[in-house]
């Protein structure tokens, strides 16, 4: 006999269940729970905008307040996805505008957003609060102006890493004088100047402003005035951090920064002049997040700064920090959870800095809470990886990028299979892994055997044969996203594990050995997958079926093939008749 509840009670219980995973589970329990859940679902996350149609979403969930969508595959960040591939948000916005007049939040990642869509957003949602455009493109400051002018209740406007066309219209001035609800503003990606006076006035009249990330064009000598108007800031992204500061300007800056007692996160620091860094020293002990990935300063300066940040949980820094800086980090920042070290000169074959595997080993030893790593370096050894794995079994995200492809263990000259094998064996909760260096099929065997919680795997220039891919597809139970480039993986593993693909969000393979014939076969056999061939050499029919395709993007979908593809993308479908775009 079922434990029964009245609907309102069940709905009330569901109101305490927030995670998408749990809500999805709840909706699959039984018919009545499905119904109740869909009416009270307020937040929807669609990891692949082509996996479901907007109409299906609004039909199933009648009262949603927050929507998050992702468009292009992750490898678009590395310019592997050609221009025009897709990820257009317009059909979504049109549908959402009609269905959810009370929508409050829209978060988009790697999507093409037009000014028209921004204008539609501005007009359609009376209580609109949050707009996050992460790595998006296709819009201009005109669209932003529309949002500024119309969204009276806007709290958050975050343009992180987006490409915005500057129409030079002082869009920031479009926030009316009566507008005071800004909480978070991130314009760090904007290349052009914003009206500084408009910015100052905006900051002055928004008492709840907690996060302000300026763009490069905001001069350092104006920063102090800005900060004095917002001493409640918790997150600050400076503009350019260099100027010819007079001493009183400098002390002004020091004072203003010190006045921001709530400041926990700092970023920006373009063109930073070391002499002005001490201005932030008083804040260091309270900082939990520090993004110095634009700070081109040397190890000693970085070390001086970081050594004072005893509460630091997240550090993004250039490899100028070197092994010595990382040792200091390991010694001083015991609360560190996340470390990202970016290459200062990625295209320089020779190393320009003294950053080796040792830096990462030190941090893994000293920082017991370290769980997320992104590390660019030029050499690695199996021994180091084994040490890191043993030190940090709590690692959940491990992305190692040895800059030179197929680089072996620099000590033994062997492949790095056992090193990464140790990582997946010890770090049982590993969710995300990026491989690099010289790797054979062996590493994939380890991954398939041990990486049971792995959700996302990025592979480049690795493996010997289809067996590698087969190990991953057949072994990684939790795999959702797999992206592969320049690996000798062909048809067999893919076709043998076709059913697996329906349990994943997506698979990307570029410069591999998957034949056109196999793609067609896969498209035929798997109606719930979109098998998209991307080939800029022209129609695949103009080449033999056994010819490998340039790029392949396979994703599960309940929306059928899409129709907004450019002329170099084809969907393999059941009729194996190529559909023109």
């Amino acid at each position: 006999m079922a434990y029964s509840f009245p609907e309102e009670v069940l709905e009330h219980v569901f109101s305490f269940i927030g995670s998408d995973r749990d809500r999805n589970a709840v909706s699959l329990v039984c018919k009545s729970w499905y119904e109740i859940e869909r009416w009270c679902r307020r937040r929807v996350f669609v990891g692949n905008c082509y996996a479901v149609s907007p109409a299906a979403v609004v039909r199933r969930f009648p009262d949603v307040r927050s929507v998050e969508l992702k468009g292009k595959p992750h490898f678009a960040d590395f310019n592997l996805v050609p221009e025009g591939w897709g990820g257009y948000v317009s059909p979504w916005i049109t549908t959402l505008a009609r269905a959810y007049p009370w929508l409050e939040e829209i978060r988009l990642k790697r999507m093409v957003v037009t000014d028209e869509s921004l204008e539609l957003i501005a007009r359609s949602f009376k209580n609109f609060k949050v707009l996050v455009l992460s790595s998006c493109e296709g819009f201009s400051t005109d669209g932003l102006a529309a949002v500024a002018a119309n969204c009276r209740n806007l709290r958050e406007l975050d343009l992180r890493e987006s490409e915005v066309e500057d129409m030079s219209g002082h869009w920031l001035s479009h926030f009316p004088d009566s507008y005071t609800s800004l909480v978070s503003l991130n314009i760090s990606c904007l290349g052009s100047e914003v009206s500084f006076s408009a910015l100052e006035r905006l900051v002055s009249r928004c008492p709840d402003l907690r996060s302000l990330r300026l763009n490069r064009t905001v001069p350092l000598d104006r920063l102090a005035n800005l900060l004095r108007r917002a001493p409640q800031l918790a997150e600050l992204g400076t503009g350019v951090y260099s100027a010819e500061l007079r001493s009183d300007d400098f002390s002004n800056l020091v004072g203003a920064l010190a006045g921001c007692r709530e400041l926990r996160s700092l970023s920006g620091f373009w063109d930073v002049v070391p002499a002005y860094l001490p201005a932030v020293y008083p804040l260091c002990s309270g900082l939990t997040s520090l993004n110095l990935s634009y700070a081109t300063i040397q190890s000693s300066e970085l070390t001086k700064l970081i050594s004072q940040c005893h509460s630091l949980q997240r550090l993004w820094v250039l490899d100028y920090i070197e092994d010595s800086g990382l040792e200091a980090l390991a010694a001083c920042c015991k609360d560190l959870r996340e470390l990202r070290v970016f290459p200062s000169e990625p295209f320089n074959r020779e190393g320009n800095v003294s950053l080796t595997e040792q830096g990462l080993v030190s941090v893994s030893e000293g920082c017991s809470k370290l769980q997320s790593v992104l590390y660019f370096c030029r050499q690695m050894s199996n021994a180091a990886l084994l040490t890191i794995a043993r030190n940090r079994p709590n690692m959940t995200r491990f992305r190692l990028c040895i800059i030179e492809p197929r680089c072996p263990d620099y000590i033994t000259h062997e492949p790095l299979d056992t090193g990464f094998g140790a990582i997946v064996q010890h770090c049982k909760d590993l969710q995300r892994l990026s491989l690099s260096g010289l790797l054979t099929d062996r590493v994939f065997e380890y991954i398939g055997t041990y990486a049971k919680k792995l959700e996302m795997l990025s592979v480049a220039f690795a493996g010997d044969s289809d067996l590698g891919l087969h190990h991953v597809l057949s072994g990684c139970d939790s795999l959702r996203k797999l992206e592969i480039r320049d690996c000798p993986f062909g048809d067999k593993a893919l076709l043998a594990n076709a059913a697996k693909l329906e349990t994943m969000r997506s698979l990307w393979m570029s410069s591999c050995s998957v034949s056109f014939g196999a793609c067609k076969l896969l498209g035929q056999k798997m109606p719930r997958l979109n098998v998209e061939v991307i080939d800029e050499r022209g129609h695949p029919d103009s080449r033999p079926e056994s010819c490998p395709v340039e790029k392949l993007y396979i994703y599960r979908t309940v929306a059928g093939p899409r129709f907004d593809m450019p002329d170099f993308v084809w969907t393999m479908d059941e009729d194996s008749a190529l559909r023109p775009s």
Partner: protein
Amino acid sequence: MSEGAMAVVKPEMKSYIWLQTADGSIQQVEEEVAMFCPMICREVLQTGMGSSKNYAIVLPQRVNPPILGLILDYCRFHQVPGRSNKERKTFDERFIRMDTKKLCELTSAADSLQLKPLVDLTSRALARIIEGKTPEEIRETFHLPDDLTEEEKLEPLRNITDDPRIRLLNRLYARKRKELKEREKLKSVEVEEERVDERSVDDLLTYINSGDDKGVRANKSKKKNRRRKDPLKDALSNKANGDHEDLEAVPTACSHSEAKDLEVATPHKALKLQDFPLGTFSPKLEFDDSYMDDDLDPAMREELDREVEDFARRLNPDWPERIQEILCLDRPERKLLPVHINGTSSSCACISLDRR
């Protein structure tokens, strides 16, 4: 709560409220404890009930004696004003520890008594029980039926019946199919379920064949086995695949010629079939060409065509276009093939001449 506060506190003269649970049993409860429940409080104030055994307040059905006991324990603790937040929290954490069945009953009961803090407490506890579980595990925990079909679990691909037009269509087709099956039994005319619009055509055939046109019947029986599984579902679900995106976006300038490609055979005006968007489509319709009677001799076919036309005219004056299409598909040189509804009917990319 002035009444509560005014209650005489002398132990021997303490006030009690009388409560009756669904099983008929009646108990008395200290007034300040009982009044902590909004529902009881309201009853007392509005109706004056609860003052004696004969006038016991009847509690909602969901409140049985053991659960009432628990609720009263909760009220007894929390109605004392002086307690700190920490004390209350500690009590709550201990209080909430019970088996899931009891927790469910308690949540339900607290809700019926409108005791919001307890509803929140129990709801949160239930939420924690649910979190992290798979649907199967949740079903086991709460003894819930596994009544979602495979199709529904994959919603919205298959389960598109929440669109009212499609739901209505489905019902009409289901009914019609049932009728045809019954007629089949009565008249021993073999009906083949192969096409979405079979209703009309089969009707026509039945009408035509109600004589002894054995030739046709024989032909049909030969191909009877090549039934399609669920033509309607396939047709409509496939239609729905493409149609999701553009349900509203496609302008109603959809031409009627496109509309008739839909193979939905009903003149039901309310459905406004021509409003179905057609721009985006995946051709998954598989037509069983058993209906294609290649073996029919031309004279027979001609006669059939004529009869069909006549019948159509009589049946419904709005149907000439419908029938035209059916007749077209009936011709031998045009096999029944997936109809690709992408663009105008003339583009017919998939109505190829290949045999299936």
